[in-house]
């Protein structure tokens, strides 16, 4: 990376707006159909006692909920740290240190997720939800941080000048002009972060954090393919749903009047 703070943003722009609209309906429908078929298959086949212990509504709901919870906590941490940090790093007085923070976030993403998770566990000796959520948040922080910075930097300087020129304070310009106009990019970053988080949350069981990874692990270790498949398909379905929610947010939360 160069020493300047010109950083490329993550973008989830794909194809035309019309294609996006179609995806908005097709994606959740596909998830429901696939997950439904797999569940029907898993519940109607003859399961042995080990399989039956995992493949029951209560357990699947528990594991899915744990997975969702990790994702939500990660999202909250990522937004709570990435967006304010990005805002601070675009202030003129903080420009010199921006590359340092971007560098740290880069390391977080470049390092293997499992490594970050295990190192954090060894360091803190915590286990459970927070032991999983914190390293996963570190791992998926970069897209939100980077897109917040890029989003704010790409606001037309003439608008910032106009805002200051008619008497807005610096914070007024930041919160009423720069951040709202950066929201589309911030949301695109959040969507990428969330998809990363859902995927990585399958590793949470290593630190006793629960989640759908546990089903995959059980199925693999005890050689029960049906448990493994149910866990994997639910994780994939959840990732697609989270991506879909991200798309919905991008569609409806962006500032009006831009298109």
């Amino acid at each position: 990376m160069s020493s300047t703070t010109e950083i490329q943003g993550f973008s989830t722009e794909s194809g035309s707006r019309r294609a996006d609209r179609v995806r908005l309906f097709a994606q959740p429908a596909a998830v429901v159909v696939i997950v439904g078929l797999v569940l029907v298959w898993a519940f109607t086949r003859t399961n042995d006692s080990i399989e039956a212990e995992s493949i029951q509504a209560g357990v699947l709901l528990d594991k899915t909920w744990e997975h969702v919870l990790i994702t939500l906590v990660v999202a909250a941490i990522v937004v709570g740290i990435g967006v304010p940090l990005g805002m601070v790093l675009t202030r003129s007085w903080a420009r010199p240190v921006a590359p340092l923070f971007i560098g740290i976030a880069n390391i977080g993403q470049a390092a293997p997720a499992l490594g970050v998770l295990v190192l954090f566990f060894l360091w803190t000796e915590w286990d459970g939800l927070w032991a999983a959520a914190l390293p996963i948040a570190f791992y998926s922080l970069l897209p939100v941080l980077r897109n917040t910075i890029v989003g704010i930097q790409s606001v037309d300087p003439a608008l910032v000048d106009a805002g200051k020129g008619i008497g807005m304070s610096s914070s007024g310009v930041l919160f009423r002009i720069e951040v709202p106009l950066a929201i589309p990019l911030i949301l695109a970053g959040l969507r990428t972060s969330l998809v990363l988080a859902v995927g990585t949350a399958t590793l949470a069981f290593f630190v006793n954090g629960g989640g759908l990874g546990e089903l995959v692990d059980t199925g693999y270790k005890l050689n029960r393919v049906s448990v493994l498949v149910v866990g994997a398909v639910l994780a994939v379905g959840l990732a697609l749903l989270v991506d879909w929610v991200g798309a919905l947010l991008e569609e409806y939360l962006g500032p009006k009047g831009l298109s």
Partner: protein
Amino acid sequence: MAENVSGVEIQLENVTKRYPGTREPAVKDFTMTIPAGKIVILVGPSGCGKTTTMRMINRLIEPSSGRITIGGEDALKLNGDALRRKVGYAIQQAGLFPHFTVAQNIAVVPGLLDWDKKRISDRVDEMMDLVGLDPAVYRDRYPRQLSGGQQQRVGVARALAADPPVLLMDEPFGAVDPITRGNLQDELLRLQLELRKTIVFVTHDFDEAVKLGDKIAVLGDQSTIQQYDTPEAILANPANDMVAGFVGAGASLKQLTLLRVRDVDYHDDALTVVAPDSSPSDLRKRMTELGKTYALVLDARKRPQRWVHVRDLSTASTLATVGRPVGDMVSTQSTLQDALEAILSEGGNAVVTGSRGEYVGTIDINTVTDTIQQLREEHDAGSAAS
């Protein structure tokens, strides 16, 4: 009109802007008084510091040294944000916030000044009416849904929303097509007749400066004032080669746009005759007595109709059809440029009419050249005396 002036005087004294790491200041020792209620244009080549100078008035750029007072108040002692809320600011391409509606854009400064909702809403409607945008139609539109000219109008409305005594305009009409620009300029002049703000206007277009300015400051490098005077004076007598170069070719023609026919000594000695009251033979007799070869035929309401030559009259039976119809006419409100156009197309002599279209005189090429000559001499004498 003096009691209607809502603008205040701006004074800049020895204002200098030096950027760190540069040897020469961007603006050097700038001193100028901008009279209350007038439009003062800062004009000069790119990079001469005219925008920097203007931006120091509302302290978007902090002066390195010097004094700036607005209406007697020391601008450098005020809080910068508070100062800028009292100084209107309009920029090129309007600088409207794309995620705000037209109404929200106009309401920004009143909102910053904590006006109550009702007052803001009324003010938004009032401002939209003022700049010629129907509130019912445009209030809730976003800037992207407006044409360039409409955006610029909203920009002006936003700058004026809190009724600031001073308005700074940074090449506001630079990015619109020439026709729209002309309309916006006319509208600014119309607004100014009503509002009488103190307007500081930056442009690099000298024609725009001549059209809008009560006074023009031609600036050179480091914002040094080459000449600060009325457009008439600058056109008649550029202070130095740099100003002359900036005024460009056609200074005399540009001067003609500043003068009205009513300001010059047009002739009122043409022989006129009211058609229904006279016959061709009577007119012929009068013309030979007075030694005139041409006469102007008027209708019952004294409006010019036809030019007749004395020899046309021998064969004519009525004055209503004799001679040739009067072509281009000018009114006393017309500019001398329009008059010159009429003189050229009429072949040496154009008819001047009053406010109801009645004959008041004629104007010819000598009147125009004498006027220009006289202006030059006046401004020469003026600059020699000072």
